[in-house]
């Protein structure tokens, strides 16, 4: 469905001051797959998505969408994909149904056909009751669902979702996930970007972690945890300021140790065993717990804890 080889995207002048948002990435997405781009803000996820959506020209490298070259067959590609952009592009002064209807018409679908699809899709995203409401008056979650419904109006082979649940409350996120999960079951190929680990774990069969325009890791969520983290993490809290002094005494107990202001993380295959050894050495943490490694640990390890933006 998607094949990218050494794909790059720069913004700005042809002279030296250009910003390189995507610095040479290669990905392959197959039919029916749910594929994720995971990365912090500014990693280049949206820039990549916009190239895949055949709206933003590729700076260099090779890109094929549904076997076509976006530089040549842009309209044909866009006719067969669905796009849910990071920022809403709804006409907030029109009502829900009109937004959906006019969008269907952009694909050249006959009016009666579009009307019927609108009805089905409003049902699918649970907005039937809101059909006549102005978009302005919808909640963030409803707008996202409307955008998802809109992206499905041409019955796309490939659905692109750029941060589909950013800014939504937990209930709204779960409704969106539920809908996306159904689409996945129906065999729609999903490509999404996110910086939520739970979203990536729930929805993606395979994902890449992007940082500063590059792919830093690739695999299924389980594979990524296996490769880039340990099975378990022991979290220990000593008193304020004591964490730094304790750390050198226990760093040999784990494959990797991380000292945070409020706790120490021991990355290890067996957390209970590590904690027992800490006690053996006469150290007495105020609190300790063992948990399984998560995608979040992988993410933070690969992209760092420093804040971007």
């Amino acid at each position, binding site marked *: 469905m998607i094949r990218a080889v050494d794909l790059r995207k720069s913004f700005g002048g042809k002279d030296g001051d250009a910003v390189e948002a995507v610095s040479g990435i290669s990905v392959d997405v197959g039919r029916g797959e749910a594929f994720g781009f995971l990365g912090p803000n500014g990693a280049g996820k949206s820039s990549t998505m916009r190239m895949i*959506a055949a709206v933003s*020209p590729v700076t260099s490298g090779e890109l094929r969408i549904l076997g076509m070259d976006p530089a040549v067959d842009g309209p044909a590609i866009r*006719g067969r994909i669905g796009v849910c*952009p990071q920022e809403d*592009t709804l006409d907030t002064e029109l009502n829900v149904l009109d937004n959906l209807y006019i969008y269907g018409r952009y694909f*050249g679908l006959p009016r009666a056909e579009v009307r019927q699809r609108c009805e089905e899709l409003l049902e699918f995203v649970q907005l039937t009751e809101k059909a006549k409401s102005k978009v302005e008056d919808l909640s963030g979650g409803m707008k996202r669902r409307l955008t998802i419904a809109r992206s499905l109006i041409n019955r796309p082979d490939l659905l692109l979702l750029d941060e589909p649940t950013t800014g939504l409350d937990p209930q709204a996120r779960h409704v969106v996930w539920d809908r996306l999960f159904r689409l996945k079951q129906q065999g729609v190929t999903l490509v999404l970007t996110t910086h939520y680990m739970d979203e990536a774990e729930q929805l993606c069969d395979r994902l890449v972690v992007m940082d500063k325009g590059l792919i830093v890791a690739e695999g299924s969520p389980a594979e990524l945890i296996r490769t880039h983290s340990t099975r378990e993490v022991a979290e220990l809290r000593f008193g304020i300021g004591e964490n730094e002094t304790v750390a050198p005494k226990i760093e040999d107990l784990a494959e990797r140790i991380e000292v945070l202001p409020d706790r120490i993380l021991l990355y290890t295959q067996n957390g209970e065993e590590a904690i027992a050894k800490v006690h053996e050495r006469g150290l007495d943490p105020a609190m300790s717990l063992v948990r399984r490694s998560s995608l979040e640990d992988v993410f933070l390890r690969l992209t760092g804890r420093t804040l971007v933006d």
Partner: protein
Amino acid sequence: MATPVPLRTGPFDGAGRLVDYWATVYRRTWRGSVISSFLVPLLYIVAMGVLLGGFIKGDPAKLEGATSYLAFVAPGMLAAQSMTTVFGEVTYPVISMIKWQKVYFSMVATPLTVADIVLAQLGFVMFRVATVSAVFLAVMAPFGVFESWSGVVAAFFVQLLLGLAFATPIFAFTAFVMNENAFALIFRLGMIPLFLFSGAFFPITNLSAPMEWFARVTPLWHGVDLSRQLVLGRLDASSALVHVVYLAVLAAAGWWLTVRNLRRRLVET
């Protein structure tokens, strides 16, 4: 799952797909535009043409052949109204579609191209110019200020050309500056001086020589003079041809710039 979407069938097919969008927008906005588009021009006619004009002696030699001031000012108002209608349509609505609502971004995500979008929007602007012009001409008809009915019909089409000659350059400007503060500038330094000094309300020969020369190169004057020649039945073929060519060249150049500027905003990033 895959249902192929229809391929485009001709150069106007893409713009045709946007007709429903513009129809929806118009259904929502036409009531709000009634006062500014239909009523205000008529108030001008009553105030300036009938009441103020009552004090002005209708000397055809001084009024470019019009037998009354009302007959002189009516075609001028018609053309000026075409201009102001266009200014309203291709400034704030365009910037909203780029920057605030980002509706254009939803359009370019589909098989539509930037040229389709521009063409459809210009079509809508022409529709607006056509409706306000038709209403204006219909209301003016009973005043007996038109000398030539074929001229009136031709003047109607001149409004579309004039509208286009304003629409494309301003559309290009909006897409280029993307800054609503710049609109204050083109409204105050562009639209209002043109409105007052391009021969709509008085013959430009009344201006001082450099001002007259300046008025002659403004697009509104070309539209005003052509409209006036037509409705007064005093067509001068050679100057009319100059007017038409001037307006057509402006419209074409503006079209090229609009598509280029909007493409830079929407897809070449």
